[in-house]
């Protein structure tokens, strides 16, 4: 970091007891993780941090969903608290996609389980025009639509929930489209044989690992004509190339679309890197958990604290 900045960056380990510094200098206060009270958002710790500065700059979106001493606490007590450029850029981009989006809005929510994304699905199902589900989440919707899913990863206890979400989306002129064709394998492995079939023809010993080419085409067309795209989660097991065509097709469709597109989450960023489309996504979120909570419509504690300090 010293080299990149062209000056010496001093590392202080005992910085809570005071930092000696002059304008033009940079001091790295070593790892807040080791401060007692950081995770518990201890007020005394937050006030100590606030006392070190004239201006506190919150520039870490990826931590904004956690109320901790170095995020939310210090924001409340610093003489002045503001957002740094990285954080404000991120909030502007995400706000553009969700608060006042260009229509139609298409969201992709992939991942293994409905249960972990239920709040996101619930929030998006009433906001977006098309909600594309992928991975294990899609399997539950496929089963809810009455199709066989063989040995696929599925949450049978959430079938009613899936139907409720679909009904809710349709009630506001949206939809959660179910794939018409899928790519199956007999085992979860890099060597598994891929077989494309109609969603109605999935066998008892099949596992669904990707959307099929017809579905990929249908979803790609939706993405290409979208005004706004929100992407969280792959639609197949793209780590194995024979089950990656669906995610690849959607990645390229997003890249080619003129829509304002935002993407986030570890698997999604990995897929974006794998298919080389990073430069063609409008904004890639730096936060995993914080990105999901933003999509869920939750208030991020550190951002709420900044907003409370907008006037002083």
């Amino acid at each position, binding site marked *: 970091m010293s080299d990149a900045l062209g000056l010496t960056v001093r590392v202080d380990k005992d910085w809570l007891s005071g930092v000696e510094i002059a304008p033009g200098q940079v001091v790295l*206060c070593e790892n807040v993780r080791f401060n007692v009270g950081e995770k518990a958002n201890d007020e005394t710790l937050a006030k100590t941090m606030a006392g070190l500065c004239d201006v*506190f700059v919150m520039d870490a979106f990826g931590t904004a969903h956690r109320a901790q001493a*170095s995020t939310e606490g210090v924001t409340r007590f610093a003489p002045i608290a503001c957002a740094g*450029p990285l954080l404000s850029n991120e909030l502007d981009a995400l706000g553009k996609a969700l608060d006042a989006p260009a229509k139609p809005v298409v969201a992709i929510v992939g991942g293994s389980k409905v249960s972990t994304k239920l709040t996101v699905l619930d929030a998006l199902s009433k906001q977006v025009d098309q909600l594309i589900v992928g991975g294990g989440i899609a399997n539950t919707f496929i089963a809810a639509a009455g199709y066989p899913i063989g040995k696929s990863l599925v949450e049978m206890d959430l079938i009613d929930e899936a139907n409720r979400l679909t009904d809710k989306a349709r009630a506001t002129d949206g939809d959660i489209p179910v794939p018409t064709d899928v790519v199956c394998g007999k085992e979860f492995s890099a060597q598994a044989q891929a077989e494309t079939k109609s969603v109605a023809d999935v066998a008892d010993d099949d596992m669904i690992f990707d959307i099929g080419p017809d579905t990929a085409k249908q979803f790609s067309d939706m993405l290409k004509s979208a005004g706004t795209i929100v992407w969280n989660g792959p639609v197949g097991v793209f780590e194995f190339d024979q089950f990656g065509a669906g995610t690849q097709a959607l990645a390229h469709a997003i890249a080619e679309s003129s829509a304002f597109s935002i993407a986030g989450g570890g698997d999604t960023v990995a897929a974006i890197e794998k298919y080389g489309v990073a430069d063609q996504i409008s904004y890639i979120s730096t936060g995993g958990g914080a990105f999901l909570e933003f999509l869920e419509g939750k208030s991020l504690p550190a951002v709420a604290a900044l907003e409370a300090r907008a006037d002083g």
Partner: protein
Amino acid sequence: MQGQKKFKRMQDLDLQGKRVLIRQDLNVPMADGAISNDARIQASLPTIRLALEKGAAVMLMNFRYNRSPIICPMR
């Protein structure tokens, strides 16, 4: 601009001679390492440079799971 959140922005503030404490995100939450430690550090540099240009004394705070030193290759 519609959709913009209401909060103070560092870009708009006078930081001349001020002690500025910046909370950064240099951690690596991504399982696949797609956003590397280096990318996080690179991304954080413009904020530091802007604060220095504005005449601030800059203190950096971050949270990391590992204790490895922050190494940033020359660009």
